């Protein structure tokens, strides 16, 4: 017994601070030496030396389910022209593709020949990607606006889009009818906020007309494009932050009115929205990108015939009613030893039969114009035989040449924090947006 307690007492922690500091010092000194030796070799080795064009080999493609089906369909066709090349298509997770592409570019090896990326992250990879301007320009007319333009940044072109993501508003026609709301009466966001009163009264609060999240920027982005800012948070040459522009103060005033409306499901979390939409507790989906119907058909097939698509309301009556989210584009890393061949495969996969196969497998809205032209005459039974493809194309046509500037994701996060304080009434609109602007400017080093 005595021995036990002795051991425990002794066993307790005679780790002295001096010993610890000594160890820490040794570590930091050696670090300093290494730093002195290696400052010449800067950590970032962007791109990496490209090997000479290969006569054969493997074309590796990375993407996630919903982006790579076109490539898979075109392997045979590709091999007719390029019999010496093997095509290796890898379906990874969405985050996984982005992390791995970054690692490979930074490490200087291991990147694929073609990679699907979310266009909003394009500028994060730009120094490791091939400028495809000359190869791609002849296909501009084959892509619906604005999908071709959004693959470029500062005059260089980096990738063709796999899909197009115009945004509208989805609403439950049966519920709107029940509460006496008509699509033609909703012209501005303000109209929608006002209409909430009817729903709230008639349903006694059981049904919300729409839902909103205070700390996300989805609606802000719609309103920014409506107010003429095709760079969302940034001006057209991506040098200035515009979130506190008077036009955006006007837009956020409309958002605040929407937030303060009578029939709002505020700050739903996780998959609460899907559940509430499915169970008829929310009548409208304000943020409605073109991929959203996949959630409807996958998760709520029993609501077929009840949903409709309309244009997003305007900030001021008669103003633009548009919105656009972030499609996927196929980029080619500079590391690829067979850039031209990779381009040929990308082109095959996103035009013609490749685009058709992608659409057949995934039903995402095509960026390939001839295909969308065919589809727009076809009514969609899920939407009560509405010609939603025609409406999508019209919204896309009205969208200015949008782009995603440097630091887009960081600006989203910073703005979200300030927007939340504004909508919840903790900060006045103009002061809040100015604070957001100041923080984005300092962290992104923009004007």
């Amino acid at each position: 017994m005595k021995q036990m307690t002795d051991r425990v007492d002794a066993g307790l922690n005679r780790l002295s601070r001096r010993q610890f500091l000594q160890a820490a010092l040794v570590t930091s000194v050696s670090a300093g030496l290494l730093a002195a030796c290696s400052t010449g070799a800067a950590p970032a080795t962007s791109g990496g030396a490209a090997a000479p064009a290969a006569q054969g080999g493997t074309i590796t493609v990375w993407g996630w389910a919903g982006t790579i089906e076109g490539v898979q369909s075109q392997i045979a066709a590709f091999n007719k022209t390029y019999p010496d090349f093997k095509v290796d298509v890898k379906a990874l997770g969405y985050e996984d593709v982005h992390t791995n592409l970054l690692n490979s570019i930074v490490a200087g090896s291991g990147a694929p020949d073609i990679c699907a990326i979310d266009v909003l992250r394009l500028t994060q990879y730009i120094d490791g990607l091939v400028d495809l301007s000359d190869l791609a320009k002849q296909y501009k007319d084959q892509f619906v606006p604005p999908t071709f333009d959004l693959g470029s940044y500062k005059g260089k072109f980096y990738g063709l889009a796999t899909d197009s993501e115009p945004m509208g508003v989805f609403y439950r026609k049966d519920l709107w009818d029940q509460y006496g709301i008509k699509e033609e009466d909703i012209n501005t966001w303000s109209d929608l906020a006002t209409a909430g009163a009817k729903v709230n009264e008639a349903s006694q609060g059981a049904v919300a007309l729409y839902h909103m999240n205070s700390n996300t920027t989805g609606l802000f982005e719609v309103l920014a494009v409506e107010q003429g800012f095709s760079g969302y948070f940034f001006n057209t040459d991506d040098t200035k932050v515009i979130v506190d522009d008077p036009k955006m103060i006007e837009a956020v005033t409309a958002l605040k009115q929407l937030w303060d409306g009578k029939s709002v499901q505020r700050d739903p979390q996780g998959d609460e929205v899907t559940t509430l939409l499915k169970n008829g507790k929310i009548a409208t989906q304000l943020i409605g990108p073109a991929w959203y119907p996949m959630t409807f058909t996958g998760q709520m097939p029993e609501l077929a015939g009840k949903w409709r698509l309309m244009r997003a309301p305007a900030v001021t009556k008669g103003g633009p009613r548009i919105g656009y989210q972030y499609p996927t584009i196929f980029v080619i890393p500079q590391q690829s030893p067979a850039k031209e061949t990779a381009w040929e495969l990308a082109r095959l996969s996103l035009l013609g039969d490749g685009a058709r196969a992608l659409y057949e497998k995934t039903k995402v809205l095509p960026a390939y114009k001839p295909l969308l032209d065919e589809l727009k005459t076809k009514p969609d039974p899920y939407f009560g035989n509405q010609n939603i493809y025609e409406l999508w194309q019209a919204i896309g046509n009205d969208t200015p040449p949008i782009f995603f500037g440097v630091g887009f994701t960081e600006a989203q996060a910073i703005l979200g924090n300030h927007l939340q304080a504004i909508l919840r009434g903790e900060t006045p609109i103009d002061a809040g947006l100015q604070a957001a602007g100041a923080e984005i400017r300092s962290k992104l080093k923009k004007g």
Partner: protein
Amino acid sequence: MATSVQPAQAWQPLVRRRHWWSTLAPYVFIAPFYLIFLAFGLLPILFSLIVSLYDWRGTAPSTFVGLQNYQILFQDPALYKALWNTVYVWIGSVPPIILMALTFAVLLNAQRQRLRSLLRTIYFLPVVTSLVITGLIFGHLFSRSYGLVNGLLAHVGVAPINWLAEPAWMKLVLIVALLWRWTGNDMVIMLAGLQSIPPDIYEAAQVDGATAVQAFWRITLPLMRPVILFDAIISTIGTFNLFAEPFVLFGGPGGGMAQAGLLTGTLLYQNSFVYFKFGYGAAIAWVVAAIIITLSMIQLRLGNREAD
């Protein structure tokens, strides 16, 4: 046991062999760690120290900026928010987890009992549940409109709470999720620790007429102190590196509403792997490392003092 550096009870062999192998053997036995660590551990650590002196974003070329990243970091409100949240969650989760784990371990420390064996496995289940699932599960349990928790509260007349969007409640949900997920893990640490207490001590105590409760306070707790300290230090390191649970609960590394779920681990991830600001991310990592080292030393000191 545990965290001592100079255990007084080091083995003094009765038979001394001044053989070259006896002198060399200890170094050979610990060499694998150092060799592997030199190859795959030290280099990246030094690299990150250097990177923290660069402004390096994404694939763009980097520029040397000296201590600028640290200067910006110390003025960044997000750092202080993350630190405050992490300390909050640390205090809220580590002591209860240790207490529950020890309690479960003591009560379930018995061989050949079906029910206890089953309970041990049940307490361990959350550890093997994947993280996405943990996020989904807690999202459902704490959902405002249809969650089980609000459903139960409604019976006692409490209005629905938006657990995952109100800053104060968000931290509580995170703490509950951590309790759920990690108690079973720490129970295994405690169970293993209990095995090193020789049963004859309890037998001696029984002969002396000690009750089970007395035995717990006089024997189990003091003898488990090193294990508890070990667990506390590991948990502290874990909390300051915590990433996955807040990520899945609050929809990404941003920390959700009012950044109430932003922790040092998610701040690091967000800057490094969402914004691709590697230099800034490395600076965060080193500030966090300094805090972890300080806290561990304080814990060691306190553990030491209590033992004296």
